[in-house]
């Protein structure tokens, strides 16, 4: 029984995240079990089972605030070159407790690393294909045609064992994404080849508690419909252990929808409204709301403050997605 072992392991492994105080972990346990009542409660995975994040190699709570700035060096001209190495890796991951899925990943995690840079920098992404299938990295944002990461243009498809370097000037400022663009496209995306790509404005954004949420799902029985939904891959991960957020602090969520097989996805916040900046390309807010709807590839910035302490839910406002994993809690202290 994979799940039971994972649960035991999960309990033994200390989670020493700066945002995760012991008190929260204790209350989180209570939440997890509050949903197990017969009449209602919250939907949840089978009681007593949990995904083994260590075996998966990534934890949604770490993915949440993990921004990969890469390595930088300065050209003689004074221009900053920012570099990353990405490798496509075939990897079996536990997408829900006790259920294994043969995924395709960038750097062994889903979503792939959240690449972050500043507008105008020269970005250079060295891509190695360690998978048994051809792949590419196609970035959203502006770049030359040959850096588009699609078959038949520039380096085109990168065969297994092959390499290439995608290089372009980062822009425009905003929230973008990257994903594989090899046929069959739906399969290459749904199996996990995607990630967020953030280009900060040259003068930055106001200080905030920043998080990235890539809304996704997994079709584990290959019927072109998802069996489980989530933000950052593991359903209910932020229900079982809420996201700790300080009161009155500006919260900024970088929200990306990569969900395959369903036409739209959405984000809904309880108890508060947020400023929504579509694609993050303008400092002017697009909407002040508590629910946004995104098609695949759409993304935006959400900003708000929690003026009162307590637990506030967030989830897709499609009840089906919510109860199939895509829901979580903010714990405001």
């Amino acid at each position, binding site marked *: *029984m994979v*799940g*039971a072992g994972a649960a035991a392991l999960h309990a033994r492994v200390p989670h020493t995240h700066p945002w995760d105080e012991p008190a929260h972990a204790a209350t989180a346990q209570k939440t997890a079990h509050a949903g197990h009542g017969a009449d209602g409660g919250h939907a949840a995975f089978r009681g007593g089972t949990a995904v083994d994040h260590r075996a998966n190699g990534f934890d949604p709570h770490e993915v949440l605030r993990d921004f990969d700035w890469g390595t930088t060096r300065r050209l003689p001209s004074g221009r900053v070159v920012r570099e990353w190495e990405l490798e496509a890796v075939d990897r079996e991951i536990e*997408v829900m407790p*006790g259920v294994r*899925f043969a995924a395709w990943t960038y750097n062994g995690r889903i979503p792939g690393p959240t690449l972050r840079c500043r507008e105008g920098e020269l970005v250079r992404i060295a891509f190695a294909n360690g998978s048994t299938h051809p792949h590419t990295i196609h970035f959203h944002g502006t770049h030359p045609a040959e850096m588009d990461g699609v078959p038949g243009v520039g380096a085109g498809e990168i065969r297994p064992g092959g390499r290439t370097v995608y290089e372009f000037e980062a822009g425009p400022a905003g929230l973008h994404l990257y994903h594989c663009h090899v046929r069959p496209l739906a399969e290459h995306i749904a199996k996990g080849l995607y990630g967020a790509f953030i280009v900060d404005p040259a003068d930055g954004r106001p200080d905030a508690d920043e998080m990235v949420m890539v809304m996704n799902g997994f079709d584990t029985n290959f019927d072109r419909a998802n*069996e489980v939904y989530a933000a950052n891959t593991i359903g209910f991960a932020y229900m079982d252990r809420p996201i700790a957020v300080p009161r009155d602090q500006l919260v900024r969520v970088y929200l990306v929808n990569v969900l395959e097989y369903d036409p739209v996805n959405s984000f809904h916040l309880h108890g508060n409204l947020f400023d929504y900046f579509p694609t993050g390309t303008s400092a002017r807010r697009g909407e002040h709301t508590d629910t946004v709807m995104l098609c695949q590839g759409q993304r935006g910035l959400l900003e708000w403050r929690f003026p009162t302490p307590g637990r506030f839910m967030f989830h897709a406002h499609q009840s089906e997605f919510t109860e199939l994993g895509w829901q979580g809690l903010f714990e405001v202290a």
Partner: protein
Amino acid sequence: MEAHGATDRTLAGGRLGSVPRWVLGLAPLLLVAAVLAAFAVLDGPGLGERRGPPAEALAVERTVLRPGTIELTVRNDGPDAVQVAQVTVNDAFAQFDGAREPIGRLGSATVRIRQPWVEGEAYEVALVTSSGGTIAHDIPVAVQTPSRDVSFFGLMALLGIYVGVIPVALGMLWLPWVRRIPPGWLRALMGLTIGLLAFLAVDATLEGLELAGEGSQALGGPALVLLGGAVSYLLLTGVGSWLGGRRRSAGAAGAPGGTLALLVAVGIGLHNLGEGVAIGAAYSAGALALGAFLVAGFALHNTTEGLAIVAPVATLRPSVRRLAALGLIAGGPAILGAWIGAAAFSAALAGFLFGFGAGAIVQVIVALSPSLRDEHGRTLHPAAVCAVLSGMAIMFGTGLLVSV
């Protein structure tokens, strides 16, 4: 040819002549066991690892709904063990107990799902396996499963009496009339009976095939129906010839009418057992509305079965006690069937029982058909054919009243 025979004799009486006969009989079996053991120990030499993902197949054998819970009993139909990892009901993950361990081949397990279901609504339960596969089970109309208390079994017994015992008993009241009709009419009546039974045999076979198709296929599926038919046919034939042999050795002469009546009663009884299972299961699943119309329909349908029992004994003078016993043998199993169907329904068992009933009826038809013979020795003479067809028509007509 000559040389060949000589070799055989040499083998049997020569080198192996001193070996006891039972060893020669056992040797091939032991060799098979040794080869299988070696094959298993060497892990199938030359075959290598099986390719592809595990083949997962679970058949839902039983669904029980109680307030706040849905209980599914599943059987592993496939070649590989299946681990149920998660459960969804109507596209939402749900809490459940049971099936913590992988379910081995032909093994079964019960998952008890906590779900605040609403009466009359439809539910789709999906068992998500460790490989990510889903096994979906539809509950077309959610109705609480009756609890198995004394009053429930009492109700099932009453149902069995209504659809089995009473109609058969009523049908047997034709006996005085049957006694007074001329031999030609009696032959026609036997033809009618055969028509009735032929319809029942076809009906039971089709219903059995349908039921068995829903159940666990690893246990045989529709083959169970044919198997059940063969078993009962052979059993009844054996019993019939044993009874015949006893009568002959006792020096009894004349008509085998009593034996025939008993065989007909047993055949119809086995058929009613299957019918009882179907009725009990349908009631248990909430699919059967116990309307007065339905019960009346069954009564009419089954009354003709009583006629089939008394036709062979028309020329005899059976005691009332014997007649009552025949009636109980034919009608009583409906009660037992209703209990089985309501308490321990499995599609595979029901399919087997339907086949069993059908086989019994076919045997009865075979046993009855000599009594159609007219003074010219013809079996399927025009009057007999008309009677058989009329019997089928009657069953078809009354059957329209009772489609469950």
